């Protein structure tokens, strides 16, 4: 538990730096939603990750109950990684809907290579069947490969730590809102936060990430 907290704090600090690097000024208390979507000068419209974060390795259970080794299974593919929970009434469905809509707006030769990986932070309520049914609201017609993952609390905590995001608390209900996008080079150069502009950011950046060389 102690180890996990430390990792979470480090991830939070790194993310604070990322936000600070977005170039907003004037407001003493900038909010994330005021910062994202305004990055028009860099390569990415999402929040650039400096340094880039390597694709993590962790193994969890997919919705068929089979082990899914994230690092190996998605290697070389543009991959969205998002931690959330299906009873989330707010950020989670909007975020996944933004990913889904972005996928329908990029060429099929890109979207067909993409993995969308949703990892539940609600170990207690999100069974394989629940996750599958929830993702089925989004996956049809997107051409991407959708994967829903679950595991024990320790496994989920470790997966979040491996992805360098803040480990969820409150039975998974308080969780990082970050969507990480790993590229064919197996690094995440950009992440996204929920905003009214998130779909456009993802759409824009996915095309760049997917076309980057290995």
């Amino acid at each position, binding site marked *: 538990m102690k180890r996990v907290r430390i990792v979470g704090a480090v991830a939070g600090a790194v993310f604070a730096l990322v936000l600070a690097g977005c170039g907003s000024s004037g407001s003493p208390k900038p909010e994330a939603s005021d910062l994202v979507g305004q990055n028009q000068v860099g390569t990415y419209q999402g929040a650039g990750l400096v340094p880039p974060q390597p694709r993590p390795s962790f193994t969890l259970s997919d919705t068929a109950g089979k082990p899914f080794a994230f690092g190996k299974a998605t290697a070389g593919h543009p991959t969205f990684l998002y931690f959330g929970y299906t009873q989330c009434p707010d*950020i989670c469905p909007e975020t996944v809907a933004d990913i889904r809509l972005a996928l329908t707006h990029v060429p099929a030769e890109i979207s067909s290579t993409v993995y969308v990986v949703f990892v539940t932070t609600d170990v207690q309520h999100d069974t394989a069947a629940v996750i599958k049914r929830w993702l089925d*609201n989004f996956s049809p017609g997107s051409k991407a490969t959708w994967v829903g993952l679950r595991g024990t609390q320790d496994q989920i905590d470790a997966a979040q730590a491996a992805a360098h995001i803040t480990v969820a608390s409150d039975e998974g209900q308080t969780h990082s809102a970050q969507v990480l996008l790993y590229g064919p080079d197996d690094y995440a150069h950009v992440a996204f936060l929920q905003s009214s502009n998130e779909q456009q950011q993802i759409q824009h950046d996915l095309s760049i990430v997917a076309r980057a060389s290995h």
Partner: protein
Amino acid sequence: MRLPWPAVAAGVAVAALGAAGLIRGAVPQSLASGSGAPSAGPIVVTNAYVRPPVPPNDTAAAYFTVYNTTSRPDRLLDVLTGAGATAVLHTTNSKGNMIAAPNGALIPAHGTLVLSTGKGHVMIGQLFGTLKPGQTVDLQLDFQRAGTVDVVANVIAVGAPAPGAAAPSGAHS
């Protein structure tokens, strides 16, 4: 100032009707301040909308922007809705976590309260029926000073753009 008892009783009756009728028409339009036509009272509510549940999740989320036109702070104490049996206000705390707000939410003098994705919402549970885009949901907002304000919120599909995100100019939440 709270509304006199008859008005409160009427509001409760409206809520009950809304509960039965679920959608548009449960609140007389003369009482309703919908997303398109802000009321002229001390509290102006705009951009009200509801996201339907994503199955198997069975809760909906209502969003709106509250503008306090007065020079004194007010507080959103409670929300009733015709769409479901329960309505719980969730707001973001100082750590950025979204939590239930049993004491309501402050609206500063000449300030706004913005409930938007990631910042806060009213979680509607035990829905009385299926919510579909194009329908409307009645919301009754109870304020400490301004009393009851009735709002009509459009049901907007998950992922579809939310109505005008901008808060009234010069206002800070």
